[in-house]
């Protein structure tokens, strides 16, 4: 029982899709559709190597054909835990490519401006008849799906029917026997041909489209057989049986002639790709096999950020790939074949090609203080996006470097506005009902102990004062002795520092304190109320540092958030942090969400962004920035880079990317 299945191009074009339930059909073209959510929350965030994506009760799985820039997506209800989805995806991918490759190639060229405007003119409207081009696909898909579903149903049945030796016997008979039960003489032949093609394509696909299908397939099978063993002896045959069964079942339900015709993709007859004659296609294909690559570079490369450092980054890859050259020459055609492939720019990247380069990049990232499993995931994602691509005239190292820098840039670039001043002004200028007083803008600073929360809060305060705001600091660290006094000193300093522009008769900055040992959430509430009554623009809430594993303290923090609903929750973390970054941020974010939603304030609030301190102490080992943004998906609002009030900066993505890739 699927909910949605689609085949689309990375540029955004949906080539074919089907929704199986009215609910999904309704949202299919909205931005909250499973596919759009997948792209927004997983693929663009660099999580494309993940196993699956869960959203609103759906599980979404996907696979790529990088070569033709296609995405295959299947969405289903999470509670169903369908086990065949990965195999289904692999099969869809194989068949679709087999059936429509020439058409798809032409299509991809046309969205890379390779077709030279020939097909783009008015007169050629007929050339692009997509419905016509894919008209067989519905039948093929139906058939494929039915096979998988029936197989799954049967498996379920046989699992419950523990005492069903008969089923087992028939299940384990070899394919040839099975064929004899089918009346038509023509069928077994076709069936076997299909099976063969299917198998061949599958292995070919593994090389081209990434091993996700294969790799996952095995993983799934393992877990499945583990489960099965509880029920019956069915599992002895384990992995293999499930595999062969897929192929054998192809002809089981005695298909109609039309079905068979549509499934007869084993013979290599030219297929009907729309109204474009195979003649035309051929011309286009040849012309393109050279050009695509150069053109591709255009869409992957962001060289302008690297001009000065290209050489250095190149070196890193070159060095980390010492053993690469030897590896590459191991193709089926031997060194010479590989040489020619490279020479003509038709070399297709395989997982083996990429492995050493990716491993090297991973080590490099970790040296730059990127948390280990973030480095893992980022590199895995890069690999996933490269497997199956034609190399063109660049080296593997170059391709990896480019893809990595694109990926890192993407992860670090904020997806929401980081313009705090504008956000504050907007809130302050939003009209309120006349009877009510304007609410101040509140920012809560959270984090573990000793990372510099209070110091950097003061820097932010200084910056806000410079921008003409009246700021109230709420001392909600009622835990650590000296915390309130520390803030008092800061407020005194800030009060004495000159302010640009007109002076306000009232103080620009004040401290709101209630001593130690009291409930922080309550103090924050009072502070905001005080700020409101006394016409403060911004309230900065300092909280006690706490370890992410300390549940009572995390609950207290979540309560503070739930009670006061601050405009921004900023996590303060050190640039020095390595692997810990992941644990800290994940747990802070989750605790805030879980506990604040539990305490009844509706949907849980997570971290809105980060302030990274001690930036000046890490030189170019700025990996923490990548770890932090990857984990939360949120931007870095500030970096603290020194001891004085002016040592606060905004993150420049380009510089961070350079620093991370530099040697």
């Amino acid at each position, binding site marked *: 029982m699927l909910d949605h299945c689609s085949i689309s191009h990375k540029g955004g074009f949906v080539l074919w899709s089907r929704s199986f339930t009215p609910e999904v059909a309704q949202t299919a073209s909205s*931005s909250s559709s499973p596919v759009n959510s997948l792209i927004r929350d997983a693929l663009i965030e660099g999580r494309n190597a993940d196993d699956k994506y869960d959203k609103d009760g759906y599980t979404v799985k996907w696979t790529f054909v990088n070569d033709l820039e296609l995405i295959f997506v299947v969405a289903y209800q999470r509670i169903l835990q369908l086990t065949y989805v990965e195999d289904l995806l692999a099969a869809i991918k194989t068949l679709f490519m087999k059936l429509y490759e020439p058409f798809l190639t032409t299509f991809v060229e*046309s969205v890379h*401006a390779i077709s030279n405007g020939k097909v783009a003119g008015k007169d050629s409207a007929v050339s692009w008849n997509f419905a016509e081009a894919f008209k067989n696909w519905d039948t093929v898909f139906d058939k494929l799906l039915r096979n998988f579903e029936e197989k799954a149903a049967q498996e379920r049945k046989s699992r419950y029917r523990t005492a069903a030796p008969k089923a087992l016997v028939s299940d384990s008979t070899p394919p040839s026997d099975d064929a004899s039960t089918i009346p038509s003489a023509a069928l077994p032949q076709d069936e076997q041909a299909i099976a063969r093609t299917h198998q061949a394509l599958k292995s070919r696909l593994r090389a081209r489209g990434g091993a996700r299908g294969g790799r996952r397939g095995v993983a799934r099978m393992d877990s499945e057989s583990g489960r099965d063993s509880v029920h019956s002896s069915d599992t002895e045959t384990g992995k293999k049986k499930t595999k062969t069964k897929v192929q054998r079942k192809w002809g089981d339900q005695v298909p109609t002639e039309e079905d068979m015709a549509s499934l007869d993709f084993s013979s290599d007859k030219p297929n009907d790709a729309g109204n474009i004659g195979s003649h035309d296609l051929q011309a286009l294909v040849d012309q393109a096999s050279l050009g695509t690559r150069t053109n591709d570079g255009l869409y992957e490369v962001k060289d302008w950020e690297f001009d000065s450092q290209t050489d250095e980054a190149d070196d890193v890859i070159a060095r980390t790939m010492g053993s690469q050259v030897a590896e590459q020459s191991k193709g089926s055609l031997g060194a010479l074949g590989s040489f020619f492939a490279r020479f003509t720019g038709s070399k297709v990247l395989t997982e083996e090609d990429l492995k050493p380069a990716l491993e090297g990049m991973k080590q490099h990232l970790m040296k730059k203080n990127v948390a280990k499993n973030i480095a893992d995931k980022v590199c895995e994602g890069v690999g996933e996006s490269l497997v199956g691509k034609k190399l063109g005239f660049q080296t593997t190292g170059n391709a990896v470097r480019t893809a990595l820098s694109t990926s890192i840039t993407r992860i670090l670039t*904020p997806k929401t506005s980081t*313009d705090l001043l504008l956000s504050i*002004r907007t809130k302050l200028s939003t009209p309120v009902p006349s009877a009510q007083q304007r609410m101040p803008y509140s920012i809560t600073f959270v984090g573990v102990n000793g990372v510099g929360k209070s110091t950097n809060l003061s820097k932010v305060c200084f910056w806000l004062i410079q921008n*003409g705001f009246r700021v109230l600091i709420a001392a909600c660290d009622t835990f650590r002795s000296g915390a309130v006094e520390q803030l008092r000193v800061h407020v005194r300093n800030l009060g004495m520092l000159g302010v640009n522009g007109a002076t306000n008769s009232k103080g620009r900055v004040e401290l709101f304190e209630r001593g130690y040992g009291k409930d922080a959430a309550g103090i924050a509430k009072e502070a905001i109320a005080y700020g409101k009554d006394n016409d403060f623009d911004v309230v900065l809430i300092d909280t006690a540092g706490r370890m992410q594993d300390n549940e009572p303290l995390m609950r207290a923090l979540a309560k503070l958030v739930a009670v006061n609903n601050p405009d921004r929750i900023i996590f303060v973390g050190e640039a020095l942090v390595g692997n810990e970054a992941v644990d800290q941020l994940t747990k802070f974010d989750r605790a805030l969400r879980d506990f604040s939603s539990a305490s009844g304030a509706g949907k849980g609030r997570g971290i809105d962004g980060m302030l990274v301190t001690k930036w000046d102490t890490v030189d170019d080992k700025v990996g923490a920035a990548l770890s932090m943004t990857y984990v939360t998906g949120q931007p870095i609002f500030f970096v603290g880079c020194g001891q004085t009030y002016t040592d606060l900066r905004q993150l420049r993505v380009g510089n961070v990317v350079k620093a991370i890739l530099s040697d």
Partner: protein
Amino acid sequence: MLKGSTLQGCIESVPSAYPLTLKTIMVAVLALLLALVALYVISRKALTTRGNIYLLVGLPDGGKTTIFSALTFNQALPSHMSLQANSSNVTASSGKTVRVVDIPGHPRIRDQFREHLQDLRGIMFVVDSNSVSRNGAAVAEHLHLILDAVTSIPPSQTPPHVLIVAHKADMLKAATSSTASETAVTRVRGALERELEKRRVTQAQGVGMDGLGEEGDRVEMGGLETVSGKGPFKFTEWEGGDITFVGSFVRAGEKDDEKQQNGISALQDWIAESS
């Protein structure tokens, strides 16, 4: 000139078996000069030739890919969020072929538009006229980026034409006095002017974080200057050049028919005129 004189030198050093008259030398020199001038003019022309690229930019779900599809395939393919840019060569009604590039709108990848700044002839900023009143701030933030980039193009390059596309006009109800397209344009223009004014004011008053420190290597983002140098921000007074507005719509899934043609005809005309 230099070449001319060395040439003369050469000729004079030739043993005068064929005595050259001053006239022939003059002719040779003149011809050379002419050739040089012609070369110079041609190369100048090549340098200042305007680009050929028309960008489609704007927030996600605005309809860029749909417009791209209508321009390229003469039909609106269904679409989802773009992960990468599309480009195609489109022949305008004027007969000129231009390249249209559809840039993904997601904030994390929309900066790709900068790769095309050198070859830019036009920018189409696509706005969903239905949601613009709700997310005007986000639209304005993006537009600000674009306008900043446009105004910082070096003066040696011809500035690109800017078109703001009030898209999805089909979902608006046409007011009695105006067409749906006009309503869409009015709405988009109003919302954007309001939001850009907010940004302009914030910027005028604000002290950037980098202004705090010593080095100040960052120039503040510009792009919102008006001719008069004062607010409120009006598109008609934008210092960077003319900004055109059109309303448009493309019905997804519909094939090329009369209606469809009308939906983006204003946009197509704009391309034809400006190319």
